């Protein structure tokens, strides 16, 4: 059958559109952030990776980033209080989805670092605070796949490291996503091998059985942790650090902490990243 050129072009575009829709969520495919602030931050983290001595490599989104960030001095103080002497460095970046963290790891941020321990916190920005009905199963499979990809690249870049995989923390900005978080954490719990990959779920110490944060654990946004929540996280990590690294030393040789590049410039407004739905990102 002979097709006109226009028919063929329409047909191919429709097919491509359908294929694109079917393959829209791809947490296991590295994708860079494109905003200028994220590009600057990536450059800063590349520089950080080459400095000092890093035994504990923290990776994640803004929930991780803020803990060791110069623009959150109270959280940085908590970080130092808990981790000084273990040469811990923070490579979290705000609003990152799994595929963004994957891109950063594939593009130099873990090259030549060889940490003993990697702490990975990710996933909440792939869930967001609203999941369209009927898409939960596909989303959970996609996010699980994304975590597998993260673990693969970490093994490739730092084969000797023990990875501590954090269960996704609860969110109270929309209680409806809590069952999805639980189902993903169920999958993540099965990834542990009791040796080089550990799974750590601290949610029962952050929130009640319904997933509601205990007082003081989270910010009013119901998403980011507050100092009490960070302390719970530290209390869960420190026994593992003792086991894997021994007691903390009297000196610390990790590179100096970084912050949000957009806040470093005097007079500039803080850069809030918003998802298309207008929700706060972690």
């Amino acid at each position, binding site marked *: 059958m002979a097709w006109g050129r226009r028919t063929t072009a329409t*047909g191919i575009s429709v097919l491509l559109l359908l294929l694109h829709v079917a393959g829209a969520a791809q947490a296991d495919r590295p994708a860079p952030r494109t905003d200028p602030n994220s590009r600057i931050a990536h450059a800063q983290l590349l520089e950080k990776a080459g400095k000092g001595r890093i035994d504990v490599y923290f990776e994640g989104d803004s929930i991780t980033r803020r803990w060791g960030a110069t623009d959150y001095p109270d959280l940085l103080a908590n970080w130092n209080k808990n981790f000084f002497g273990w040469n811990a460095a923070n490579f979290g970046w705000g609003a990152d989805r799994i595929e963004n963290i994957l891109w950063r790891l594939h593009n130099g941020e873990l090259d030549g670092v060889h940490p003993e321990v990697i702490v990975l916190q990710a996933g909440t920005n792939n869930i967001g605070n609203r999941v369209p009905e009927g898409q939960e199963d596909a989303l959970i499979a996609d996010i699980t796949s994304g975590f597998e990809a993260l673990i693969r690249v970490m093994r490739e870049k730092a084969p000797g490291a023990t990875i501590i995989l954090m269960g996704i923390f609860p969110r109270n900005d929309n209680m409806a996503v809590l069952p999805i978080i639980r189902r993903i954490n169920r*999958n993540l719990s099965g990834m542990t091998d*009791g040796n*080089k990959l550990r799974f750590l779920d601290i949610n029962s110490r952050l929130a009640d059985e319904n997933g509601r944060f205990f007082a003081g654990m989270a910010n009013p946004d119901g998403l980011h942790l507050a100092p009490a929540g960070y302390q719970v996280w530290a209390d869960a990590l420190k*026994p593992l650090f003792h086991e894997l690294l021994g007691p903390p030393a009297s000196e610390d040789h990790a590179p100096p902490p970084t912050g949000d590049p957009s806040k470093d410039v005097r007079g500039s407004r803080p850069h809030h990243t918003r998802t298309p739905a207008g929700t706060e990102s972690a």
Partner: protein
Amino acid sequence: MRAFCCSISFFLLFITTADSVFSQSKEEPAPVPASIAIPRPTPEEVRLAERSLAAFLENAAPEVKELNRKYPGLIAVRVPPPNSAVIPNLAPYFQKKHETNLEVARKGDIDVLFMGDSITDFWRNTEGAFAGKPVLDKYFGNLKVANFGIAGDTTEGVLYRLRNGEGRGFSPKAVMLMIGTNNTARNSAAEIAEGVGAVVLELQKCFPKAKILLLGIFPRSTPNDPVRSKIAEINSIISKLHDGDRIHYLDIGAKFLDAQGNIPREIMTDALHPSTKGYEIWAEAVKEPLEKLMR
């Protein structure tokens, strides 16, 4: 153009059916031993309660009617929700390890089955903080042991696995079961106990000749963590399943604690998973009971 439309509709059909294949199937709750079942009303009893409530509200004083109008659901019949711990369900990520177990089941020739979660799973580890293999070889090397423990698993996962091939094709003389610790964040003690009971019933169905060594869930975390008392409550309920015949309940949890009730770091480095030394304590405690069950 017709062939093109055909392939598009086929493609769309594929997307929609693929979607339903990935969804969780709805299973019925598994049966639970009567001695530990949570009391639940029958549908008829629920209907009776609802009819009585409706009659009460119809004849109630005006202020009560107003209260009911203002707060719908304040005055209501409350039916216990379904217990997820007894509805067979295996998280998708666990399928791979389940399939490995199926291969072992198919080969058969198994004397003892170990069943449970990561604490059981890591009997197979040769390295790392939770290496149980050297202890397994030392204490049980003369037995044909199959280890179907899967890290992260729950009572509902074990139920699913037993019903979907891990409970078929072989006849172990004994089964050592410990399961439930991964349910503690989600289910109540009574619900988890039902889950353990359902697993015990399923094991009896799959392996009618086997004796079951049912272990109390090991302690975890610190003495003041609420999960400790939850586990103690689960254990006190499931201890009722001991019949001295086919089901033997044994709680060795105290062996992992010091005088203050803490779990020494050299026994469980993370206060959850036994170290090699922890596995030694475990093996010492169950070696004789298991051998007795196998006679």
